């Protein structure tokens, strides 16, 4: 197990290397010229050339990549083309904000998704199941901005319970994480339901009942953990969505997070920032999936990690 984790962690290094290579050349392939955007519409050709030199974008791509990697290896993420600020500065607040948001969303999506899924499975084909189904379907067919604005209207404007945005206290995270988690919650609810339905047919459930346990105990203690395995996969899968989906939520709730930074940077073709964010996201995603694999092990003592 420990070896496995170490092995996986070591594996990350070449991956990150490949990822950085991929990202670097990929984003330079994408049309758009940051120099133009930095210099402005009225810029003369001469000005543009000057800015290009200053930003170091006049050098051959390979040289640029080598410079970039050299910096990266010394822990220097570089400077933003747009603001000129060091990227690490720009990440400072944003990273923790996005992480908080992501994990809160995942957290409640898990709690609610499991709850709804469980209730749906236990009351299969009865009204709680239908309500659960409708909730889940709403969760994925509603676009994030819509849900977000409705939540703001109801809980901020009308009821005044939560702020409309910002990151000033835990309260600020409630509505955004609800919005962000909705889609995953739905997926989790659906998968929990079908997985639990399978588990409830298992023999050991009958054993539990034969012991005289209450049905609620049977479901909670015996069925749920066994149903978690496919659910964890989905949760891990959806983590990528959380990172990407945070853009909409960060926009609607004016949250200074990585998602919006990424979008702004893409719009500006702020290469170093885009590279840094994607690199970070990849790393996170890989780590989360490692975590998922470890969780598998925790959930299912049978799983062995060996070749």
């Amino acid at each position: 197990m420990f070896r496995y984790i170490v092995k996986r962690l070591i594996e990350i290094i070449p991956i990150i290397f490949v990822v950085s290579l991929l990202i670097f050349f990929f984003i330079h392939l994408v049309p758009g010229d940051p120099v133009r955007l930095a210099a402005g519409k009225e810029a003369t050709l001469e000005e543009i050339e000057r800015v290009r030199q200053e930003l170091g974008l006049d050098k051959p791509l390979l040289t640029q990549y080598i410079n970039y990697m050299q910096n990266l290896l010394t822990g220097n993420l570089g400077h933003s083309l747009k603001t000129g600020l060091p990227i690490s500065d720009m990440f400072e607040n944003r990273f923790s904000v996005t992480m908080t948001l992501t994990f809160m969303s995942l957290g409640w999506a898990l709690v609610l998704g499991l709850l709804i899924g469980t209730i749906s499975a236990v009351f299969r084909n009865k009204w709680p199941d239908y309500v659960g189904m409708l909730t889940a379907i709403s969760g994925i067919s509603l676009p994030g901005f819509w849900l977000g604005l409705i939540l703001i209207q109801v809980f901020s404007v009308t009821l005044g319970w939560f702020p409309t945005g910002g990151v000033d206290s835990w309260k600020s995270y409630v509505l955004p994480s609800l919005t962000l988690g909705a889609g995953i919650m739905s997926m989790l609810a659906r998968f929990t339901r079908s997985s639990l339905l399978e588990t409830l047919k298992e023999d050991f459930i009958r054993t539990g009942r034969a012991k005289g346990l209450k049905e609620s105990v049977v479901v909670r203690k015996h069925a749920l953990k066994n149903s978690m395995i496919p659910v964890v996969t989905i949760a891990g899968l959806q983590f990528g969505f959380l990172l990407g989906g945070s853009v909409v939520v960060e926009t609607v709730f004016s949250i200074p997070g990585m998602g919006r930074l990424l979008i702004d940077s893409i719009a500006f073709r702020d290469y170093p920032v885009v590279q840094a964010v994607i690199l970070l996201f990849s790393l996170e995603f890989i780590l989360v999936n490692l975590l998922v694999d470890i969780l598998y092990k925790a959930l299912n003592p049978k799983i062995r990690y060996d070749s």
Partner: protein
Amino acid sequence: MSENIMEVKHLQTQFTRDNQKTVVLDHVSFHIKKGEVLGLVGESGCGKSVTSLSIMRLFKDTTGEITNGEIVYNGTNLLSISESDMRRIRGKEISMIFQEPMTSLNPVMKIGEQLMEAIRLHLGYSDQKAREQAVSMLTKVGIPRPSEIMGEYPHQLSGGMRQRIMIAMAMSCNPNLLIADEPTTALDVTIQAQILDVMKQLQAEEHMSMLLITHDLGVVAEMCNRVVVMYAGRVVEEASVYDLFDEPKHPYTKGLIGSVPKIGQKRARLDSVPGNVPTPNNMPKGCKFAPRCKDVMPVCWEKEPVITTVGKERFCRCWLYQGEGRDVHV
């Protein structure tokens, strides 16, 4: 009350398939005396497990339901009490060992936790005391290093150990009646011998009654006082174990005993009962065994025989013996 710990009367259980009701148990009646081991034998699919599930009322999440009959346990009809009363009986007064030791344990829960669950629930023990009880149960069933095993998961154990854990679990609250559904079928002989030994010992020590379900006649011969033979959802013969092996009455029982390969017998071919058990939705009209019966008579195809006494504490459901004795059940 009586010397019977349990009386099953006219039990009828059905499942729904394709929106169609299939009667799986039909007028199953038998009794278990206090302190005895009653064997329930019969071919796969004849309804042995369903009988045990009916006694425990464990049909949740299946389409099964009990449509008729009584299951009288110590004077109370289990079919008329509430679910919560039934829960108090399950695991405490009547416990059960399931057929599949591999799948009947929760794969993601530690053995100890699974054992202690029922002990805490029914005996109201503290964690500490429940643990002691669990360990002592494990010791009784012959598990080596019991306290370590408490912290392990089912998949880490061999089939034999798992089955012993099931036994320990079932016996941990000192039940009055133990239903053991093919407790050794999945095991190999040396382990089977060990486990049967353990069960015999425990049963004698605790003076517990037992319903032993099996299709292994060797096990029956070794363990049981009396035997009920089932075929296609019906009781076809009931006898003491000696009577049954000495002089099987029902052609099915005869076939069953004949088809067991015996060491040192040197037969080129085994006797066998040809054909298969009829499926519930494809039941012959008359005697359910008629299509496979060597001694089939025209009447067998027409009408189902009733179960009749054919000797002291002996019953048989066959046209060969109709009229020999008194009709017992419809």
